[in-house]
């Protein structure tokens, strides 16, 4: 019961941040000139979109047990391209760059497109938040034995050891507050872990001296690769 309450508190705290931002932006509209008004409106839309996505993801977790998300062969590069396209504007606005590197020969993995999209999106948002200004975040897709590995590398503070250990074990069982990485990474990791678990994929992280790589491994769809 106590851990459930803690989980709710962490989720509530992380969802409080976009609401506080929207409130500040609304208040600052009063004094803004026309040019600033347009900028503020665009920021409000971006923040709302991200918050709605996070709430939607949390709702999806509740529906995972019902098996509502069909597994099928998914073109991995196409999903990555769509995520990059959606986040391009946000990265540019925050003075960050997102670079993609595809070296995978296998094109199809066995997954649910919607959940896969959410995992990559959450990793990329996390990388944007924790990278320094004008630095690069990397989205890499490569073959890894009989799997395809999608990695998002950021150049920010190192992940605390306890969180890294819990990810190494396979998944994060509840939303955790990551004190060295304030913001949404705790909740994002929890969401990514739950979705990966559902799709029988492995989520993990590699600690670097100057940042962290989050990855997820998907089984290659052998059936579809016969076509």
């Amino acid at each position, binding site marked *: 019961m106590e851990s459930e309450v803690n989980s709710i508190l962490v989720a509530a705290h992380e969802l*409080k941040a976009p609401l506080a*931002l929207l409130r500040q*932006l609304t*208040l*600052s509209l009063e004094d*803004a000139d026309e040019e600033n008004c347009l900028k503020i409106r665009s920021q409000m839309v971006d923040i709302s979109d991200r918050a709605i996505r996070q709430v939607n993801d949390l709702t999806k977790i509740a529906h995972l047990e019902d098996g509502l998300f069909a597994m099928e062969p998914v073109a991995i590069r196409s999903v990555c391209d769509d995520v990059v396209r959606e986040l391009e504007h946000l990265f540019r606005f925050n003075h960050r760059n997102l670079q993609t590197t595809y070296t995978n020969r296998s094109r199809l993995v066995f997954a649910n497109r919607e959940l896969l999209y959410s995992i990559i999106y959450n990793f990329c948002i996390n990388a944007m938040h924790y990278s320094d200004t004008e630095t690069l975040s990397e989205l890499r897709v490569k073959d890894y034995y009989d799997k395809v590995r999608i990695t998002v590398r950021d150049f920010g503070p190192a992940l605390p050891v306890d969180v890294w250990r819990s990810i190494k074990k396979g998944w994060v069982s509840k939303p955790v507050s990551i004190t060295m990485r*304030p913001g949404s990474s705790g909740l994002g990791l929890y969401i990514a872990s739950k979705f990966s678990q559902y799709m029988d994929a492995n989520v993990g992280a590699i600690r670097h001296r100057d940042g962290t790589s989050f990855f997820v491994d998907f089984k290659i769809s052998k059936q579809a690769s016969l076509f």
Partner: protein
Amino acid sequence: MIFIIDDDRIMAECIARSCKGGTRIFSNAIDAMNAIDDELPELIFLDILLDGPDGFTFLEELNSYSDTVKIPIVVVTSLNIKPQTLINYGVRRILDKTTMTPDDIRKEVLNVQK
């Protein structure tokens, strides 16, 4: 010059707009500390949860030097921090990100400029 230290760029810009004067935005405590070596700000708006060293570490650092200890600090956070916790750091006021208004920011700026 007013320094704003917040890892959330949009929140930092909101504070800067309310200041209506010369501001510099820093996303982490290390960059801000380096800038303070060159220029003493007249006021600092400081977030507590930052990437890398947090706001408390930054306050400790400011308290270590006779010139920086006098810089007025306003903490801007969504954490529930008791004022007593920060009283020894010379923090003027704690503003809650979820309830503060542009007027609260402007009031603090006017106070130091008086």
